């Protein structure tokens, strides 16, 4: 399904700020898998997503999606088959457009009939039934500008925009991190429902190790642009959080800071 082969990316090459964000990274994700990604700040998690989405071209390696080489495909063309939700709720929606207009944009995105009217009663009816499933009352506010919604509500709209035409691959980049705990759980629940009902192949970055282990079918851990741990199936089900943290510090020479879920060099403690 998704295959990255020896992908590398270095930022600010040949300057004092040179930073190897992806280091000869290979990853294969099968159809229907739900992968969670954990790792410290700067481990290369978001860079991995940017590489898959085509935000930049990688320095070396190849990216395949559905057996098609997409290494050099521009970002907006990849977006036809890849849905992405960002951490920042402001990023995924257009604030001055109404909920239904935002959804119409996603619903129509990429198909050829650019001069047809964007909103018709059939589309609006579909948006309403989909929004009803969230139980957030958004179905009654379809003509409200998205800029007037809360972060969680915006994130719910973004999720629907990314999945109303089911993508081949769904990328979630810490999409609940900016929300309060209750809303974060709610959005997580919605996410699971959507992924399950559409059987979406999904990769989710999270700082929350609990989410990472309880959600999905496989967990990978990144550090310094590499994958240092890749567990799934029985091994993953049996693993406790402390075992995971122990494994992490063994392999990366760092420890997870439990309070803030940040990472510090072991030597510094």
């Amino acid at each position, binding site marked *: 399904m998704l295959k990255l082969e020896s992908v590398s990316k270095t930022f600010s090459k040949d300057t004092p700020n040179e930073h190897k964000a992806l280091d000869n990274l290979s990853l294969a994700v099968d159809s229907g898998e739900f992968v969670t990604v954990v790792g410290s700040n700067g481990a290369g998690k978001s860079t991995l997503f940017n590489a898959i989405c085509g935000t930049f071209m990688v320095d070396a390696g190849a990216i395949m999606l559905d057996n098609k080489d997409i290494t050099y495909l521009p970002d907006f063309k990849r977006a036809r088959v890849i849905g992405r939700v960002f951490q920042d709720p402001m990023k995924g929606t257009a604030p001055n457009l109404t909920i239904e207009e935002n959804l*119409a944009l996603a619903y129509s995105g990429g198909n050829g009939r650019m001069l047809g009217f964007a909103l018709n009663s059939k589309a609006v009816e579909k948006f309403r039934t989909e929004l009803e499933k969230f139980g957030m009352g958004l179905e009654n506010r379809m003509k409200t500008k998205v800029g007037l919604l809360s972060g969680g509500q915006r994130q719910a709209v973004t999720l629907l925009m990314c999945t109303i035409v089911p993508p081949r691959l769904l990328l979630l980049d810490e999409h609940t991190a900016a929300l309060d705990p209750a809303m974060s759980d709610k959005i997580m629940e919605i996410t699971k429902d959507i992924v399950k009902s559409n059987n979406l192949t999904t990769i989710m970055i999270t700082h929350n190790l609990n989410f990472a282990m309880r959600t999905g079918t496989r967990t990978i851990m990144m550090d310094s642009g590499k994958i240092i741990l890749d567990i799934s199936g029985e091994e993953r089900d049996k693993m406790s959080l402390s075992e995971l943290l122990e494994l992490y510090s063994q392999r990366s020479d760092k420890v997870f800071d439990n309070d803030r879920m940040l990472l510090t060099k072991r030597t510094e403690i």
Partner: protein
Amino acid sequence: MSLVLGALQLGVMYGLLAIGIFISFRILNIPDLTTEGSFGFGLCVSAMITIAGHPYFAVLAGCLAGALAGVITGLLTTKCKIHPILAGILTMTGLYSINLFVMKGSSNVSLINTDTVFSDIRALLPFLSKDVSRLAVIIVLTAVAAVLVAAFFKTRLGLSIRAAGDNETMVRASSINVDRVKVISLAVSNACVALNGAILAQYQDYADISTGSGMLIVGLASVIIGEAFFGKRGVTVGIISAVIGSTIYRIIITVITKYLITSSMASASWLKLISAVIVGIALSIPAIKSAFAKFKMKKGGPFGA
């Protein structure tokens, strides 16, 4: 009476300019200086084709010429990554030479005793007075343009343009070609502006190479005055309010030139300063408001004087 009709004619006609500026300034968030060149481009192209004996085709060709100017600015911005304002200045500067070339090297041409859309309609509807028939032509033209543009922004493409001006990251993530969308919207915006120039040439029966200068400010003033009355709402309301704003602006200008500016002042030369002041004040209203609110808070606080 003819003063009122004259103000209405110009006001509604410059509504086309205001619609164009509304698209670039309010929807795309770019103060597009191409306007200054494309207005003149539409004017010159229309004047020359009218002289050649095709007044209706002249209006269409002028409009398309403006669209072309918009495409060039769009390509400079998106493909060559030039700052939008600089890209507009480049196109505007280049167009000055093009406009001179179109007018065969002379800086103005006269259309007196040439068949225009206005003279044609006048002959068709002899029962209307000259001013009324001219106003009718202008209202029909502006109304058609306004309806077309409003409908355009309800299509998928139009929605993509609005979103691109609003949140570019999101549009990129939703599989729309942002570059193409920007180029198209600059084309539509400048087509409206050039359409204004094209019809103006026939309206005033002459074309002058310098007519386009200062047009961006006139358009901005119209959009801002319109918003003062209607507020910032959807695109359809925005388009209507731009046209009405343009009419109000023209009435203000007429009143000023008629009653406030004495003959000792060369009246027309002050218009640009007046427009600049109106736009300058209007654009600083948010800053003035917040400064005033801060002042009030300071005064009203527990330690206030």
